[in-house]
């Protein structure tokens, strides 16, 4: 795998939150590389800094120190609007609570990132293709409240892959699902990785989910405690 370029390169990443007068060191210097096409799980108990790390990787927040290269570009110093562009082009998000627009159809939800990316002509076509890839061709005009939890998460996955991002970042993707739907969603994510070669980063505390990854990074108290390769 070392012959490929790292799609995520993190060097000495730190994050300090100030809550009142108390400084909370959420990350104390985390370094790792993730290569193109990998499936990596980030695990750790609550308070270990895994949510903070996921926000950094997702360009939702800026680190206090250290460097972060995403797809070869230094993104740790970018400002708000530039980060928005990076998120739009390079990252596909899958959230625990799906986070779909409640009043919009599945198709509109999937089209949303294309809209912010300034894509005009082929929006509908791409959205339908993404929905087909997650097996929801017959639900394109349905609204979130007309879909099951598993189906909603599929829409979210379609939304994540529609921009053909460099990485898919999944935050507890099965956390709100029953075990059967959760398994289906994990299979779907893994198959997206196989078909499109998209790098997949999963933040989870579920060992079964982590087991689907090729590599697991364990965090503890803002530091990497261990890294293990899953056979």
């Amino acid at each position, binding site marked *: 795998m070392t012959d490929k370029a790292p799609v995520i390169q993190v060097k000495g990443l730190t994050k300090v939150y100030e809550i009142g007068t108390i400084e909370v060191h959420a990350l104390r210097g985390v370094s790792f590389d993730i290569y193109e096409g990998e499936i990596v799980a980030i695990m750790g108990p609550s308070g270990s800094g895994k949510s903070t790390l996921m*926000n950094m990787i*997702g360009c*939702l*927040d800026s680190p206090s120190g250290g460097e972060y290269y995403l797809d070869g570009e230094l993104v740790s110093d970018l400002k*708000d*609007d530039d980060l*928005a*562009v990076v*998120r*739009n*082009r390079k990252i596909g*998000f899958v*959230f625990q609570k799906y*986070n779909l*627009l409640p*009043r*919009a159809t599945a198709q509109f939800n999937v089209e*949303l*990132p294309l*809209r*912010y*990316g300034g894509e*005009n002509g082929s929006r509908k076509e791409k959205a339908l293709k993404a929905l087909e890839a997650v097996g929801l061709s017959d639900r394109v005009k349905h609204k979130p409240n007309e879909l099951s939890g598993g189906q909603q998460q599929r829409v979210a996955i379609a*939304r994540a892959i529609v921009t053909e991002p460099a990485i898919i970042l999944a935050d507890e993707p099965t956390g709100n699902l029953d075990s059967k739907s959760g398994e289906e969603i994990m299979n779907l994510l893994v198959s997206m990785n196989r078909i499109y070669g998209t790098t997949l980063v999963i933040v989870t505390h579920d060992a079964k989910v982590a087991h689907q990854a090729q590599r697991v990074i364990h965090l503890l108290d803002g530091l990497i405690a261990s890294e293990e390769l899953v056979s």
Partner: protein
Amino acid sequence: MKILQAIKEALDSLNANKTRAFLTILGIVIGVGSVIALLSVGQGAGSAITGQIESIGTNLVYIMRGNQAEEVKNPDPLTLRDAEALGNRLRSPSIAYVSPIVQGNVEFTFSGESITSSIMGVTQDYALVQSISLESGEFITKSHVDGRSAVVVIGPDFADRLLGKHVDVVGKTIRINGYPYRIIGVTEAKGGTSFMNPDMNVYTPISTAQLRIVRHSVSDRVEYIIVQAKDSESVANAIKEANAIMRSSHRLQPRQPNDFTITNQQDFLSIAQSITGVLTVFLAGIGAISLLVGGIGIMNIMLVSVTERTQEIGLRKALGARRSDIMMQFLTESALLSLIGGVLGIIVGWLLSLLVGFIASRSGTPLEPQVGLDSILLATLFSAAVGIFFGWYPARRAAKLQPVDALRYE
């Protein structure tokens, strides 16, 4: 395309909270509606007053004693001699008629009924100058003036007040200060406000008034003189001629200021117009306050909406929305709210002004509210501006949300 999409999304989101959107819009409807209605009533009142001033007669020049602009001690009173001089065609080619007027308050009695009102001593030309027509009988003639006849012409409202009717009153005799006067005519109703009602007037020959009713130390003194120019173009010349004639008639030295004042209808009109203009602005200001309150309503509801949709904003940002995208989304919503309110407000304001006009005409005041294109344009622009102005702060607040915080928000 992008704008259309933004409008469609904004409509969807307003549609999701119909009651709330309706109530917010209502605030703007009331604001814009009252601006439109009050502006139209103000403009209607303005043109009603203008119309009344014009109905007094056209191309008139008024000459009064004294000078308000400069301090003149002991101004000479106006006299019939002045009026005769003004009537000299050789010196005043631009003047068509001269009508001197004597005025006083007297007591009228008729079979036990008595009222105190003003009486006007006039010449035969007064009817021409003030375009008075008669319902019955005749107006004062030259022979009445020459003969100092004890006759009166009365207005229909006056007839109703003193005699209880205004038909079949010609030939009856009323008493003024105890002396009998024969009614020779009743003027046609002109309509007017209580403050300036020609239908309450009583006319008598000027010579009779000077001799028997309004006694002055200078026996041929008159209160004022109305001069009618030949046509509207010659008003300015008529004023110049009247000025020269009056100065020579009062034997004023070249350095001396006028001891009389010449005004014309145009002056009255512009005074009235500036008064109604102030009135209109004042009324519109009251309306604008309610529009302001409506705007605060928009701001309030947009702030609620931003808070409610914090997670949605976070998601949109995570998916690549820039600050300007979020800003645009919320501004479109608030602008749309106020624009819909503005359009409905124009309709409501128009209906309101029709109602005011209806009530006014029912209560005898001829007031036709005018909904002008300018006030519609003003209200539309103003309401859109209100939407953007009061939507700005909530939209900015939404745009500045950090995606992490917004996504985590419960």
